[in-house]
């Protein structure tokens, strides 16, 4: 029987705008997580996410070709084809799920996919530490 764990706190990792409007998150380690997870581990997760978002928004030949094709077909091509950005978002969702299963859930933490929060924050939910009571 699954018991619902109580939520102790929520930590929000805000966006980092030093490079403009591209989607990047701050890699600063929040103090609330100090007791729960290794700093290196957490920063690695955030850095990987930042790299994935940078890949999604990369201005390269592929994105230009996609843009031009879309323009020529009066943007009807988006009805049948998935954009590069959407493909990378799926990759990100999979990565977050993996991280949650392997690293964060055993420590009583949960990462929420930023797309569910409008790409504003990475929400880290801290659950009550039940290991002490068992």
């Amino acid at each position, binding site marked *: 029987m699954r018991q619902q764990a109580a939520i102790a706190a929520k930590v929000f990792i805000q966006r980092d705008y*030093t490079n403009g409007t591209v989607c990047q998150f701050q890699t600063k380690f929040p103090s609330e997580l100090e007791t729960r997870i290794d700093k290196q581990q957490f920063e690695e997760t955030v850095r990987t996410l930042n790299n994935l978002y940078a890949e999604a928004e990369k201005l390269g030949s592929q994105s230009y070709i*996609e843009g031009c094709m879309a323009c020529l077909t*009066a943007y009807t091509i988006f009805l049948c084809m998935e954009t590069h950005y959407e493909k990378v978002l799926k990759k990100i969702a999979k990565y977050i799920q993996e991280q949650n299963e392997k690293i964060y859930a055993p420590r009583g933490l949960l990462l929420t996919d930023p797309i569910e*929060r*409008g790409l*504003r924050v990475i929400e880290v939910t801290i659950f009550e530490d039940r290991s002490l009571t068992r």
Partner: protein
Amino acid sequence: MKNCEYQQIDPRALAVSPASAESDAGKRAQRPRRKWEVFPGKNRFFFDGRLILAGQSGVLPLTLGLIVVTCGLFFAFDCPFLVEHLTVFIPVIGGVLFLFVILSLLRTSFTDPGILPRATPDEAADIEKQIDTSGSSTYRPPPRTKEVLINQQVVKLKYCFTCKTFRPPRTSHCSLCDNCVERFDHHCPWVGNCVGKRNYRFFYSFIVSLSFLTSFIFGCVITHITLRSQSGQSLIQAIQESPLVICFFSIWSILGLSGFHTYLVASNLTTNEDIKGSWSSKRASEESGNPYSYNSIITNCCVTLCGPMPPSLIDRRGLLPLDETLPVASTSEIELPPFVAKNDAHMCTQSTKDALERAVHELCPPGSPKTTPLGLEVCSRAAPSPEPSAAAGCSRQQALQPMAASCPPFSRSNKRDSLHSTNPAFRLAFPSPSLSRATFIIGNATDVGFLPLP
């Protein structure tokens, strides 16, 4: 016996709280709702959330009507003549352009412009904690801004009170749609939607293709009229039958708008930034250049028009979990009004008191007795005093006039308080005898009597 919709509650579900068990039963009787149905902004949704339009759709039907009517007239009256005398490609080109214009217009109108969803209550609470609220004694809270460094340039991020979040750079809150929109350009009534990050390229292709279409039709019509008048037919009749008039008036504005937006695209600016002059070179030094520009026209164009297509952040068709009540709006509304109301009322009284205090300090030169034996409410009306000492007094009387205007409401409302008031704002002392003669009491303080000051 008919199938009963009610199904037996699964006993295992009872391990969870009873509230959710009720909602489980309710779930089966009620269809799950989609997120667009509880969207807090002023937007309209069609086809079960697939299409989005602004609440005030403006003159979109008019735009569509004008385009369709103009092209209809063109195809009906000019094309037959021109196909005969020139080439068959004319209606083909016209048709292609017309199709492109309509598709771009519909794409612009019905696409999410880049709306930022509002902050969840947890997020909002977290941000509120981080903001310094030490200025609670002042009557107006300072505007909440956060400064960030973007490409070595300081940019101020404003806090949006409606969406309860710090707006990302280049984001603006549209008051017509009541949403924060990313890379906000403007709210276009012709298109019936905001123009922002996600639909700017559609908007641009709409106005450019519309310029080509109107120029093309205009050119064809002129050709038609010229050819007809050469072959001796009535000029007036030809003009009446053509869509010339509509084209003629619209072509200049559309060409102008296309030119303006081409300039914006080339310099990676938005209409909003251009109008406000955020990165204008007139200001200060070269440091206030556009931090988002790539300093190359081609790169700027490619980025704006052919860059990757960002996804919609509002997830219109997502299903709502049924145990959630209406989101942010309700809780935030409860928080906000007391804060706002208290501050507004406080602000009003405080600012008036400040004004009165300032006036008092102006009137009383230092060293003069500031208080009267009784706490009198004395308001003076600026009577033209002939005394020469009123040279200084005149300026004081002028200072008194705005005060007199604001005084009576106060005196009436604070009748009882004023008689025993110890508030210096309500006590005026006039050391010079000339002015004291000119004073009289407004309101109901007559029973207290007037004490002439020495």
